[in-house]
Structures are given as C-alpha cells and as structure tokens.
C-alpha cells in the first residue's frame, strides 16, 4: 500500500513495481465508492493544494457542477517554474504512477472524461518519462475506456509547455492549453464555471493529486493526523542554496524550518550562520536568519512568521550572502516573466529591476529605498493575476527585514559643484 509520495523503493517508476507495492489499489477502491463519497473523503482529509496557494482540495472539487451539458476537464499543473522549486520533477521521475492514479481518481470523483497534464517545456526529458508511464497505465486498463471494467472512462493527455513561468498560473495555463499566449484571465468567472473552452474545469497541482491515492488507501482520519492539523499530510520540501545536502525531502507538514535545514539538509557549509531564508519559492517573503526559531512548514506557522509555505522551496543564504544581489536577481526574474497585460506589473517589475540594479552597482540613492517600496505597493493587488504580488512581496519583505543592507549600498557622493560651501 502506497503510503508516501517518494517511498524508498527501487524502480518504482515501473508499473509492475508500483503494482507490486500496492499501486492502483486506491483506484480500485475509489471506483467501488460513489463519486461524491470520494470527494467527501478528500474534503475531510483537509488536503490543501501543494502548488502554493494551500487551497482546500476537496472544497475545490465541490465547486464543479454535478449536472452540465458541457464536458468537464481536469488540468494537472506540472508547470513547476517557481525559482527554488524542483519537487514535481521528483514525482515525474521516481513515482509517476501515484500521480496518474490520483488523476484518474480525481476524474472519477468529479465526473471528468478528459484530463490534461501540463508539464513545463524545459522538462522535455521528464515529459517522455511521464508519457511512458501514461502509456503503461493505459495498456493495463487504468486509463482509457471502461477502466477496470467499471464502465468509467477518462483519457489523460500530456501537454508540453514552451517556456513561460506565467503558465503555472491556472488561467494562463488554460489559455496556453487552448493554444494561446499564456495570458491570465480575469476572475470571475472561476474555472469551475468557465474554464477550458468555456467548460467547467478544475486545476490541481501534481503533488496535490499525488496525495489522493494515499488518502483513499488509508482513509481521511489517518491522513488528517499526519503533520499540522490544519494543513496535514506529507509535503515535498526542496532545499537549495547554502546547505550541505540540497535536495527534495518528504516529511510531514509542520516540521520546523531549522530542523529541515540542519537535520535533513545537513546544515550550512563551513558551519556559517544563516543570514536569510526564502521558505517557499522566490515569491514568498524572505525571513531573517534570527527569526527562524519556531517557524514550521505549514500554512498557519508561516503566516504568523510573515511569510508563506508557497511551493515549499526553501532557499538558504549564509551570513556572507549579498542579499542585494539576490533581490535584484529575483526582480529580474519577475520582470522577464511578466506577461505584459497589466500596466502595474509590466512597468513596475521593470522599474524594480532597474532600481535594484543600481544598488548592485553601488549607485543606489537614499530615496530609492522608499521608491522601491512605493512601486511594489502599487503593483500588489492591482493586477489580474498573482504574478504582480509575487514580484512585490520579496521586495517589500527584503526592505522591511533588511533595510540596513540597502542603506549600506547608497551612493552618497554628489558632484563637486553641489558640495555645500
């Protein structure tokens, strides 16, 4: 019985090995239940989305209309492009069948007959691996027509992106799937009412759906007791930056950040101190090294600390890190990835990038610090999608928590003729 996302089993990506270890038993069990019972199980488990927003998955599923003349769709978000995030890649590589099983169960629960799995274009190699797993699962009758003789049918289409961070935003992902530029859509209408080709659609992250077979196998009560009560379950934490053992670690939610860094990731090279940590991918607010005590990897704890779980991509920075260079690089990223639809984001991300580059060169002006804050505040909340917020939060938090770093880089010199007599 599969009880975790990345169990230590050799060759688990092969369907025979997955089956031998209890794989696809959850699908059999789910197909024997009523669809609404499956949704209820997921709802009661308190599973929350692992793509960054932590939205309750079961609740999201109930938004789908039960009766509709239109086809219904599931989009599986494998666009994984948030800097510091490399967890879905592990699922594609080591345990693709748990994801496929979760997808088919989700389709059954919501009465969906077509699912699209959107994988970022850079993961070409992983697209092939996943396609192989999908073909194997189809050959065994776990996907396709009349699944396991129950009369339920659903198809799974693997769709390769082409290099655009914004396509991880759910409405941009749908536009991209429709063959458009990846422009986010205005909400409402929400995808459950008007999604892909105007039909009811649910979008879930790869890791989220990979949790579903575990819930069905073990029951919601068992699952809801793993980790933090309000945000339970196993979570894949990717640790990168200044640690001895970077990598993806599976653990229950609610594990203290310091335990993740020192116990799992082997601490900081050279036993240096920690200057700062980005806890959940580049868009989550940065934390100071001296405020990590007691901060845990779950939605409530991170919120209380003034940050967010995001995609659980922990980036560790040691005491010698040039944080100005870090924030300038993050700003450059959002400037590059802004789709250009909304003026505050299109222009604002460029301004943030340019001003921060001045600080990198040591040419920052004292008033630039407040100017950065002003630009960030005017992007936040004023755009169609959350990319604007994602660009603003790191800058705001960096200034709030590391203002001294900016002040050190201010260029105080003035031209000779302006020197006061």
């Amino acid at each position: 019985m599969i009880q975790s996302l990345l169990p230590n089993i050799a060759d688990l990506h092969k369907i025979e090995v997955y089956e031998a270890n209890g794989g696809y038993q959850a699908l059999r069990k789910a197909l024997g239940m009523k669809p609404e019972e499956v949704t209820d199980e997921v709802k009661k488990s308190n599973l929350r989305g692992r793509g960054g927003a932590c939205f309750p998955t079961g609740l999201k599923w109930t938004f789908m209309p039960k009766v509709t003349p239109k086809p219904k769709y599931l989009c599986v978000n494998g666009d994984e492009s948030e800097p510091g995030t490399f967890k879905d890649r592990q699922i594609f590589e080591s345990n693709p069948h748990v994801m496929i099983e979760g997808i088919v169960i989700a389709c059954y629960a919501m009465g969906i007959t077509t699912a699209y799995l959107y994988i970022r274009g850079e993961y070409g190699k992983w697209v092939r691996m996943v396609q192989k797993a999908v073909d194997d699962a189809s050959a065994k009758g776990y996907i396709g027509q009349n699944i396991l003789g129950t009369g339920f049918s659903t198809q799974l289409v693997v769709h390769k992106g082409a290099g655009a961070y914004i396509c991880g935003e759910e409405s941009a992902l749908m536009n991209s799937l429709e063959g458009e530029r990846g422009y986010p859509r205005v909400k409402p209408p929400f995808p459950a009412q008007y999604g892909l080709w105007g039909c009811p659609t649910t979008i879930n992250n790869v890791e989220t759906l990979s949790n579903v077979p575990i819930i069905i196998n073990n029951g919601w009560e068992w699952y809801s007791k793993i980790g933090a009560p309000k945000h339970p379950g196993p979570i894949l934490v990717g640790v990168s930056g200044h640690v001895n053992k970077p990598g993806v670690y599976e653990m229950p939610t609610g594990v203290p950040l310091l335990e993740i860094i020192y116990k799992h990731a082997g601490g900081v090279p050279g036993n240096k101190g920690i200057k700062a940590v980005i806890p959940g991918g580049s868009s989550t607010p940065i934390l100071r090294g001296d405020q990590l005590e007691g901060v845990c990897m779950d939605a409530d704890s991170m919120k209380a600390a003034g940050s967010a779980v995001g995609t659980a991509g922990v980036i560790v920075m040691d005491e010698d890190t040039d944080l100005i260079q870090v924030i300038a690089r993050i700003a450059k990223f959002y400037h590059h990835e802004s789709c250009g639809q909304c003026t505050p984001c299109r222009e604002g991300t460029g301004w943030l990038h340019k001003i921060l580059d001045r600080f990198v060169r040591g040419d920052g002006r004292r008033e630039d610090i407040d100017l950065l804050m002003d630009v960030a505040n005017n992007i936040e909340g004023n755009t169609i999608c959350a990319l604007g917020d994602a660009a603003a939060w790191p800058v705001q938090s960096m200034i709030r928590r590391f203002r001294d770093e900016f002040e050190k880089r201010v260029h105080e010199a003035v031209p000779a003729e302006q020197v006061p007599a």
Partner: protein
Amino acid sequence: MLSEASLQKIEELKTKYPTTQAMTLPVLWMVQEEHGFISPEAMKYVADLLKVSYGHVFGVVTFYTMYNARKIGKHHIEVCTNVSCMLRGSGKIVEHLEHRLGIKMGETSRDGTWTLSEVECMGSCGTAPMCAVGEEYYENLNPEKVDSVLNKLQ
C-alpha cells in the same frame, strides 16, 4: 515542412483536443524539432495547417521563450543564473563558458556551433549550478565538469 511521422502524429492529436488551435504548441514543437527553429514560412505553414491566422502563430512563437524564431547554434547551452544557482556559483560557470567559447551570453559562435543563453530557473535547484544542452541537464557543475561537457559535445 513536416515529416510523414509528424503529420500522422497530428492526426492523432486531433482526437485529443476539441479545437485545432489547441494544437499550436505541439505542432510548433514538431517544426522546431525537425528544423531547429521556426521560420516565418514555417509559421505560415502551421497557420494554414491548423486553420488559424498567421498572426496567432507569430504571437505564440514570440511569447514562449523556448521557441526559436531564428536559427541558433548546433548546441544550445542554457545556463540558469537564478537565485539557487547563483548562490552555488553559476557566475563562475557563465564566466568559464564565455571564456572557453569566446562568446557572450545571448550570442552564437561564428562557426554556428554554439549558442549561449542565460535562462530562468530550470528546476535543478537541488543540483545547482546547472546548464542544459537540448533536453539534457548537466548538474552540480564546476569549471572542470563544464570542460568535459564541451569536449563531449564538440
């Protein structure tokens, strides 16, 4: 413009999507895999094939960073310089590559062998720094490893 095998694959794709426009990305991938880049003629071809406008195809090609609207080098080396890679020395990798190949980021060597690009996070943060050449990822790089990658490709 496209091989028989690709045309056959397109027929299969038609059963997977309710519109032909939805096949824009997959078909552009086929063109790029066969020709290395997507020329204006190829865009016109894709537009006719999928019964969408040339403008639509042009818009898509220019939106997504992985589609090449013009010819690039035989080997496309993409180096991630985002935060996780930067913290683990991607700057040195860039410097070394530029020195070895005699070109700067964003340039193609005169003989058409190499194109060097800076890219955003590729999902190799746990094995940083990295570069990709085509679909292949080269991870945990240092200058010596970069040399062996270049020697292998040459």
